[in-house]
Structure formats: C-alpha cells, structure tokens
C-alpha cells in the first residue's frame, strides 16, 4: 500500500462513506440513494457488473472499502447516462462511478490490468501530449499495452477494421510521426498541472 493509501485508511477507517463524500467526484450524493435499483437495471453493461451502482452505494454505507475500490465494476461504465436520467433521486450516478474509478486508480487499489483503466490512462496521456487526441497512437498504444507479442496478435485480429479505416482516410499512419497539436501547448500543460495540484491538495493526494 502506498503512503497515499495508508493516509486515507488512517483518516477514514471508521467511515468509508465520509471518505467517499470528501474525495470522490460527486461523492456527496451517495447517501441520497434509496436503493430502488433503477440504475442497476438500466446499465447496458449491467450483466458485467459484479456490483451494480445501487449495490456499490450500499457497500459504501456498509463500509466495504476494499471490495468497492478494488472492484472492476465502475470501470464497466460506458457513460451512456441511462442511470442518471432515470434515477428518482437525481444522483449523478455516471459521474460517481467515474469518480470512484478515478479515486481507486489514484489510490492504486483499482484492479491491475483492468482494460478500461489502462485505456483511460493511455487516452489521457495521449491527449496530454498535444492537447488533442492522436487516434493512431491511441489505437497502436492500446493494442500494444501488453507488450509487442500480444499487441501484434491483437492488432492482427483487428487488421480489417484498421485497414478499412485507413482506406476511408479516417485513420492516418502519418499521425504516428506528429499529428494535430495545440499552439499553446505550454499554457495547456501549465493549466492542467495547476488544476491537478489544486485537486490533489483538496482531496488529500498531496505527496
């Protein structure tokens, strides 16, 4: 467990709900759930959730910190917003799931190798490079996330898709060499760094 973890655990041992309220994006909504389950039933990836959102909310109240944060359930969110529009208590469930995933990720408790977790990191890093997403690099990066061998295999399996995109001029191999980028990349980086610094300070992620 990292320092970050120990610290959080020390502070919030007694009350995971409070920890979530303070550190998770939109976490203060968790207490408002009335356990109707409409979110759990609305998710397109529902069957793949070990713990659906409403259950996660109950687990948070029950203090099941490790089970929640180590779960890969939140990473199943496709951001379809079905749960949000149907929730009778207007909980921003999508965002809470994102928030929990992010929190677990930052704490390092999130499941290792969870594909969406990996992809999310890849995406952000890719975007941060130039301020805009480089789809070619993102794609290649994704397929090769598990090393060259696995990457070639996966990429080969998807080669028809890729070739189709290339043919339709919607995936550009030239992007590997550069691609679109911001003029004021420096300002952009400074801004994101500043935002991260404020957030980390606020949420106790200060190293």
């Amino acid at each position, binding site marked *: 467990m990292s320092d970050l973890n120990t610290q959080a655990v020390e502070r919030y041992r007694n009350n995971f709900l409070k920890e979530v309220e303070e550190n998770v994006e939109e976490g203060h909504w968790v207490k408002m759930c009335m356990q*109707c389950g409409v979110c759990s039933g609305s998710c397109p990836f529902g069957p793949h959730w070990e713990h659906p959102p409403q259950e996660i909310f109950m687990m948070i109240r029950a203090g099941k910190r490790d089970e929640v944060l180590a779960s890969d359930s939140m990473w199943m969110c496709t951001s379809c917003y079905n749960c949000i529009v149907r929730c009778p208590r207007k909980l921003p469930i999508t965002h809470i799931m994102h928030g929990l995933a992010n929190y677990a990720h930052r704490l390092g408790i999130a499941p290792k190798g969870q594909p969406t977790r990996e992809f999310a990191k890849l995406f952000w890093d890719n975007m941060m490079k130039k301020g805009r997403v480089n789809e070619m690099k993102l794609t290649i990066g994704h397929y090769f996330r598990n090393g060259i061998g696995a990457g070639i295999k996966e990429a080969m399996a998807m080669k028809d898709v890729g070739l189709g995109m290339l043919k339709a001029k919607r995936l550009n191999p030239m992007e590997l060499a550069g691609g679109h980028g911001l003029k004021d990349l420096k300002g952009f980086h400074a801004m994101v760094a500043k935002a991260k610094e404020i957030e980390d300070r606020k949420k106790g992620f200060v190293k």
Partner: protein
Amino acid sequence: MADVVATNETILVVGGGISGMTAALEAAECGKQVVLVEKSPTLGGRTALLYRYFPKLCHPVCGLEINLRRIRGNRNVRVITMAEVTAIEGRRGDYTATVKIAPRYVNENCTACGACAEAVSAEFPNPFNYHLNATRAAYLPHAMAYPQRYVLDPSLIGTPDAEKARAACKYDAIDLEMAEETLQLKAGAVIWATGWQPYDAARIQPYGYGRFPNVITSVEFERLADPHGPTGGKLLRPSDGKEARNVAFIQCAGSRDENHLRHCSRICCMASLKQTHYVREAHGDEGRSTIYYIDIRAIDRFEDFYQKVQKDPTVKFIKSKVARIAEDAQTGHPILHGVDTEGYHRYANEHDLVVLAIGMAPSVPAGDVPAEVIGDSSGFLEAAAGDGAIFGAGCATSALDVNRSVQNATAAALRAIQVVNKVARAEGTA
C-alpha cells in the same frame, strides 16, 4: 341555478368527489348552508370510478349511495354541477365566488328515461372509463350519477343527432340553446376539494405508456376489473383483447421521483395489493401477479392486508424499481428489465399486462386555485394566504386514501363552520 341564494353564512364547497361531498354533508348536517360546486356532470369524483376499495374489497358506490341519499334528503346542500369556480374574491367571512356553468343542454325536466340516448348514434370517448371505450354523446355518466339527468356532449351540438335527441324527448328537457352561465355566490368560507388526477403516465418514458398498448395505469385497471366497465369486468388487455393472466404492477410510477412527483402518493402500494386480488378473482390459482416495489407502504392495519397478499402463492414481490419496459414484437408482451436489489438478481420478465401504480397529482395545482392560497412543492394546497378562510380538503391537500380524505374533509368542514359561526354571531343571526 338562478335560485341559488347564498350569504356570508354559506359555506362554498368546490369539488363533488368524496371529500367535497363529505365536507358539504358534514357541515350541512350541523345545520349550515352549503353550496357544492362540481365541474363534471355528476357528483362522485374518482372514487365512483373505482371497482373496489382496499382493504375491505368493498364497493365504493356503496358509500356513494349513502352520501347521495344524504344529499337528496338535506335541503341545506345545494348542488351545482358542470360548474367551475373561476374567481374567489374577498376575505374571511365575506367572499364572492364567480362560478362558470357549462351548458348541459338538458334541463331539470329530464326524467332520465334514456330516450335521447337511444335516438343518437354519435359517440365520444367515455370520460368515466378513462376513455377506454366510447359512449353515446347523449348520456347518463353512470348508473349512480347524481343529478340523475342526462348530458349532451358538446360534440353533439350543431349536428343532426342533436335534433334527433331533442325530438326524442317528450318532456322538453333538451335545450340546445343552453349557453354558458356565470354566477356570483357569496360565502363566508370556502372548502377547496378539487381532488387529484393521475400523473401523466406517458411522461414516465422508460415504461412506454402510450407506446406499448399493454402498459396501462392503475386507474384504468380499475375500470377493466369493474363488471360495469368497458370490458364487462374481464381483464382484457388492450393490444389484442386477450385475457391478462400474468400481470405486473409497477410501484412508484411517477411518485417518489424527482423527475416526476417528489412525494409518495401513499395509496399506490395498497391499490396494487388490492389489484392482485382482481387477478385472483379473474383467474384463481392460474393468475400471476408480480409487484415491483421500493418499499411497501401498508400503514397501520393495512399491514394485515399486505401479510395476507404475501401469503398468496400467485403473488410475487420483487424489490426493484423497473428500469425499462420493452415489447415483444410478436406477442405484444411487455418485457420488464431491471434488478432485484435484494441480493442482486437481474431479470427480464415477460408479462401479459403491466399496470403502472400511477401517482397522484393535484387536479388543480395550488398555483391555479383562483384565490390567494399557499401550496407545497407538489402543488397541494396547504392553507389560505394570511388569515383567509379557504380550506383545502381531501386530495387537494395531500395524497390521501379515501379514509384519510374523509377524515381531512370532516376537519375542513369544522374549520369552515368556525368561520360562518363567527359571522353569524357578529350578524346576530345565531
């Protein structure tokens, strides 16, 4: 109508459902003068359209009969139907109400012989069956309608059928020239008992009311179960007229939902529990009822009823707010998707018919009451502004069951009496 005399010692009751009738009668039976104004052509309100009451499973028209007999026998109550109160001006002990009376096209000569209905062929959607069927445009709203007098629907006026109706009446009861009237009434106190309306089910989009014919509301289900309703009491589903044996009841359809009604409508749990009995009544052990719920709110001795229904093997309870309904294109069966939250079980359940336990919204939201009143965030009437003497009664004030509505209306009657008694003492008439 012109003979309605009212003074500052008169109590004006707006709404002729069970709450309004109760308030009017209780006050009248204390010796007070009451004018009872009802928008539709008959007294009785929504309870008259229910098949049975919970938890006794008795028939609402039974109590209606008693109340109508009380009204027929009490000259202190004067009833004006097809009338709406459009303005209330003045203050405690001294109000003037403007009452707009829509033409009925049938005068008091009517003997309810039914000759006009036989003469016409035009039909219109029957409001007393929630438009589930059509009725002749010259009609008696229902067998218990009071006043027992026919009505011509405005759609008939100006058509040859209207002339036929007039010609068929031997008693000069049909007056096609009848026009809207406006009346000014004095009153010392006003009881506002305009009741409730079912929440617009089509707005609960995931359930597909309006898109899927076999998704209906609980008030419509009452009409299906009623032997005097549009299906003769058979639980025939709308898509194909087949008998519905496997029925789903979805609780909190609109209620407890900040996207719709933020309040709990109180009656719906009991209504659904009651309606499982309709399924049993129709199909015995072959029937299937499934109640999808968040919390079953069966308060006080209603709990007995809940426990009884829980013991019925044909009734299943699933703690879940249904996420969405799809329709099987071939069979027309609604398929309910969701998660049973007790232990996390995912389901995709097929039913013959879905009944939405629809929430209660005030018929006239407090903001639309033509007087200075205070409403709550759901539009229910809390009180008159200042020291006004406009008292809410029944479901105009809150989502209430019949028993509570009557209780509430009786209390409202006393508050109104307090005002007119004070007027009487001041005027030296008491």
